[in-house]
């Protein structure tokens, strides 16, 4: 599915300094029953965000109006657990375009890259600096520069570079998806399949 191109994103960020945030927290299984990709943002972090009667939990960061922005900053091992792409959809549909953490679970990272959410892995020290900068000023802005693969805390000018493979980088910059690529090499795939017994 096509998504918005990603180039340079400058935004304030929402801090979630918890480790091992799993995809069951990002979107609980009972909200995976749709047959279309619609409305998942409403249930992002559902059980951390709402009480069982549907009223908001005021202390949860998404319910705190002083925090906003297109960047979600999470603790180490973000997105562990289930392969549900719905978790990445929920993050995207809520309005985030980038997740920053010191470590991502593999499948979640891949899912994000496939739908146009940029996972930015930083050092634990830099993550700590980001959390402190947001604590000092909730409106502080981060710049995510994909062409230069650099993340900067604008207030202090501190920055760090991040990794992304060239193929995925081009996809993100251009809003391409893998299926376009694969359909273009379908002849090679069919040739391979002929040589492979079922």
């Amino acid at each position, binding site marked *: 599915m096509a998504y918005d191109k990603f180039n340079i994103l400058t935004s304030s960020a929402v801090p979630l300094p918890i480790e091992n945030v799993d995809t069951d927290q990002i979107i609980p299984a009972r909200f*995976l029953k749709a047959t279309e990709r619609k409305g998942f943002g409403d249930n992002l972090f559902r*059980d951390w965000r709402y009480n069982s009667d549907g009223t908001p939990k005021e202390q949860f960061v998404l319910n705190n109006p002083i925090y906003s922005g297109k960047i979600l900053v999470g603790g180490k091992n973000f997105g562990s657990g289930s392969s549900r792409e719905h978790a990445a959809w929920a993050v995207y549909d809520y309005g985030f375009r980038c997740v920053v953490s010191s470590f991502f679970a*593999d499948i979640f990272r*891949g899912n994000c890259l496939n739908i146009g959410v940029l996972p930015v892995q930083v050092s634990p020290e830099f993550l700590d600096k980001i959390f402190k900068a947001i604590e000092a000023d909730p409106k502080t802005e981060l710049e995510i520069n994909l062409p230069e693969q650099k993340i900067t805390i604008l207030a202090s000018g501190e920055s760090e570079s991040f990794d992304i*493979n060239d193929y995925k980088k081009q996809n993100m910059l251009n809003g391409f998806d893998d299926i376009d690529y694969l*359909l273009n090499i379908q002849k090679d795939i069919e040739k391979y*399949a002929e040589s*492979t017994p079922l």
Partner: protein
Amino acid sequence: MSKTLFDKVWDSHVVKHIENGPDVLFIDRHLVHEVTSPVAFLGLKNRGIKVLYPERTFATADHNTPTRNQHLPVKDPLSANQLKALEENANAHNIPYWGLGHKKNGIVHVIGPENGITVPGATIVCGDSHTSTHGAFGAIAFGIGTSEVEMVLSTQCIMQPKPKSLRINVNGELSEAVTPKDVALFIISKLSTSGATGYFAEYAGDVFKNMSMEGRMTVCNLSIEMGARGGMIAPDETTFEYIKGREYTPKGKDWDAAMAYWSTLYSDEDAQFDKELTFDASEIEPMITFGTNPGMGIGISKDIPLAESIDGSPATYKKSLEYMDYNEGEAMVGKPIDFVFLGSCTNGRIEDFRAFASIIKGRKKADNVTAWLVPGSHKVEEAIKEEGILDILTEAGFELREPGCSACLAMNDDKIPAGKYAVSTSNRNFEGRQGPGARTLLASPLVAAAAAVTGKVTDPRELIREEVLA
């Protein structure tokens, strides 16, 4: 050049390598279920394309299905709609579909091996992280997201960078009442839930060589819980014995040709792994988790670790114990429980029911316990009946349900109520995983059985000793 088992299977499936990018990997077999596939099928529809190789694709309903009265219409309209969508999509694309009530229906990772869809040396994917289960046969098997499901449906390929290699050796002999589940929970407790992220694991050593296929499936199933994409075990006589004669495994000359290939599937003696870990089997005791991720496990006789003694953030650790309403330093044995769940793609096979029955035989279900016993498939259910296990269960006051994922992820009605404790043979103890507010203690079928008859966390070795004395 010497290669690992993983290298051999991966390299032979690369259709194209992209410089400083992913490999285009050919997928031999694709398993599809109702939850992660509808948006992928919709993608094909929007592009106006059909499934490229329906004969390599298999669909079943499991995540959403009720475990009672499966002959009646599904009550939850959203679940019913998702099940209907899968059936329609499978029919529209000529994909074999084993829906609710079909004799081959069951949890996707139980029915794959059962029907011989899972074979050594294959690449197998499914939109479910526990696809790693199939690695037990020497296949490369891992979970994928829905965008990738769409890729495999439309082109039979995905694009992935090759993961790093990790070998985990467990040598020596397992102690009494230590099951494959305990071996896996032990390894995860040592590595944490992110310790193997970026790696694909191979399990080697005496313990896995001597393990049944069911046990190997349990271990490989839990690979994802230490962050690994998957885990695999080199195929051997145990593997070949298990798969021979199953519906989709090769027959006659094809079998001989396949065996010639399969017998080359092992890590060469001097193959290099990016990381290698070795454990001693005698260190492992029956395990139980006390927190909110599968890495938070301890030997059942141990106390809950102190926050100061653990790696990672003390705040996250304390939040986790708070959710469980447990305190640091408390013993796990003796803690009251409310529910027992036997089932899931981790422990829903016949061997798991045999183990459970071995403890409850001649005992009674504790009055304070609600027990949900859910076979992984109709074939498992049949075996439970044929082997007389159902009689043992019934006599002890237990009831057998119909197959499905059930309380493992609580997408159907099988939800553990808020605040209640469940000893569960499933794979995740995340907050709310088994129902909003539910508290999960992951354990083996033996530990689950001991809890079911005593109503509290109990060391199964105590019950086994009682039997010996009697």
